[in-house]
């Protein structure tokens, strides 16, 4: 304790101060990073994700036919197989499937992030409140969670998107609504055990306010569990959004989105295999990347699974 305080005094600037205050945390992260790098599969996951991020955010500047991401038609080259001009072939309007597949990466990554962020924050806030305050508040929130968990997600999401009208925004909203209960239950359980820890008791004794205790002392200690779940969830969020797109209640034309593209390509399957195949491969790669990353995260952060 004395050592930590002297470091805190000696450090300069907010970064130094932050470092000094969170020495233990930084040390823990450093060890985790080391363990993470030991697993070849996780490193492959990181590589895939970096590649995807690159494709998603620079794609629009180097795709061969940027106009094909919208409503354009080149009837003379409709449904052509892969060639040098159109690496992944063309669709029913003669648009370049390669361009649209690359473009859709951005759609999916942003949508997946928003779903996990929105669903996750609702769940974290509700779970935090339920776990910290306990009693009747806890009962009400957790019973609501039970009810939401009792409904298989896609059916609920389907009902919500159908009610709101098919669009990618509504699909994202619907998925976020079905997504939060998992986080709520996770955070509630974590908070329940953490709030009895000595350091929380100490903070309370000094007279720290409730929000301060929740946000500065309890939630940061739930972070690793939340991170594991979020990284495992991201792939599922991308898949679910594509599933809604495939059914027809998600992304609407002309937005390039993998699920919607696969669904459209289904009509031309016997003689236009490339139309559905390439978006599917791109989606598989994305979800696979995030899943092996999540698997690696879990190995690092969850001691029980580390064997």
């Amino acid at each position, binding site marked *: 304790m004395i050592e930590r305080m002297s470091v805190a005094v000696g450090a300069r600037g907010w970064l130094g101060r932050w470092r000094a205050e969170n020495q233990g945390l930084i040390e823990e992260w450093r060890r985790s990073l080391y363990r993470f790098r030991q697993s070849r599969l996780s490193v492959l996951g990181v590589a895939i994700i970096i590649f995807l991020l690159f494709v998603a955010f620079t794609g629009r500047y180097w795709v061969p036919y940027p106009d094909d991401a919208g409503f354009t038609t080149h009837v003379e080259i409709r449904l052509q197989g892969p060639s040098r001009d159109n690496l992944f072939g063309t669709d029913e309007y003669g648009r370049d499937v390669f361009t649209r597949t690359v473009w859709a990466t951005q759609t999916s990554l942003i949508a997946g992030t928003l779903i996990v962020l929105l669903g996750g924050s609702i769940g974290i806030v509700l779970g935090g409140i339920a776990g910290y305050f306990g009693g009747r508040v806890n009962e009400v929130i957790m019973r609501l969670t039970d009810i939401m968990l*009792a409904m298989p997600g896609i059916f609920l999401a389907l009902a919500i998107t159908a009610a709101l009208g098919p669009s990618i925004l509504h699909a994202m909203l619907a998925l976020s609504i079905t997504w939060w209960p998992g986080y709520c239950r996770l955070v509630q359980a974590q908070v329940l055990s953490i709030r009895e820890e000595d350091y929380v008791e100490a903070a309370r004794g000094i007279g720290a306010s409730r929000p301060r205790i929740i946000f500065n002392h309890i939630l940061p200690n739930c972070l690793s569990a939340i991170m594991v779940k979020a990284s495992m969830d991201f792939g599922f969020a991308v898949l679910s959004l594509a599933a809604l797109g495939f059914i*027809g209640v998600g992304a609407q034309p002309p937005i390039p989105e993998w699920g919607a593209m696969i669904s459209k390509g289904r009509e031309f399957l016997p003689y236009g295999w490339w139309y559905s195949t390439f978006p599917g491969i791109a989606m598989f790669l994305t979800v696979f990347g995030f899943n092996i990353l999540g698997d690696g995260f879990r190995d690092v952060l969850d001691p029980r699974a580390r064997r």
Partner: protein
Amino acid sequence: MLRRLLLIIPVFIGLSIVTFVISHMVPGDPVRLAAGPQATAEQILKLEEEFGLDKPLPVQYLNYMRGLFKGDLGISMMNRHPVAMDLRRYFPATLELVLVSTVLGVVIGVPMAMAAAVFRDRWPDQVSRIVALSSISMPVFWLGMILQLILGMTWHLLPISGRFDPRVPFPPNVTGMLLVDSLLAADLHKFGIALKYMALPAFCQALFGIALITRLLRADILEVMERDFVIMARASGLPERVILFKYVLKNALIATVAMLGFLFGWQLSGSVMIETVFDWPGVGLYAVNSAMTLDFMPIMGITLFVGLVFTIVNLLVDISYGVIDPRIRYG
């Protein structure tokens, strides 16, 4: 146990409120849609009256609940069928698909988990890990289409869609599950047909279960293997085979059984996609068709029904969990 059973009631009421609220926030006008583009204002009013849509929302909800207790889930606005009747017709198809895929998941997943645990960190472990991770990353609707293209359209090995050969009459209806019905009728030919139609959808549906069981069971087997009684058995000179099957597997399987309820719910969700791809006439396809036409009585009925089925299955799993592991029952 009774307490768990009673918990179904609030969950059911909660489910009904949630589904009711969702299906009544429809900004599109389902009545206008159902009445058709040429409908006059008078016809629309009459239709609204017929479905009780002119009453205030709480009254509508109470009417709906009153119907529920009589097993009445309302009437579809599109085809005028009672929703309960349609559900009874479509659910066996979904249940059959889910049950077969669960069995597939166990039959493939358990040996894979055992191989992975026994040959830990060697190639069977690596292979099973990659197979499991790829299976959960696979967009099943896409995989289904690719399999249709290769196995169905190119090689003509398997039928690509539907539940049964349209040229052959169905086996006599007992359970509504074609595999069971054809066996009951002792009709192996029809059983074979039903099995052929089942193959692709069940395989796609099973992938997630295979992956889940493989990963979970592997970790549990490894954990049980380090327990004292296993070391004791090994020290007593019992053959490895006996240790694995008689002592380790039995203890390790408990968590897997507990997870079957979750898997069931997951596969019910998955049926939405699988049934769309394979044109499988079950609850999932029914839900999609109703959602596309904003037919909200079926949407409500399906969500409620599926939620209830899921809750009951979870309860059954919890009970069987206590039967398998007496420590939980008496603990």
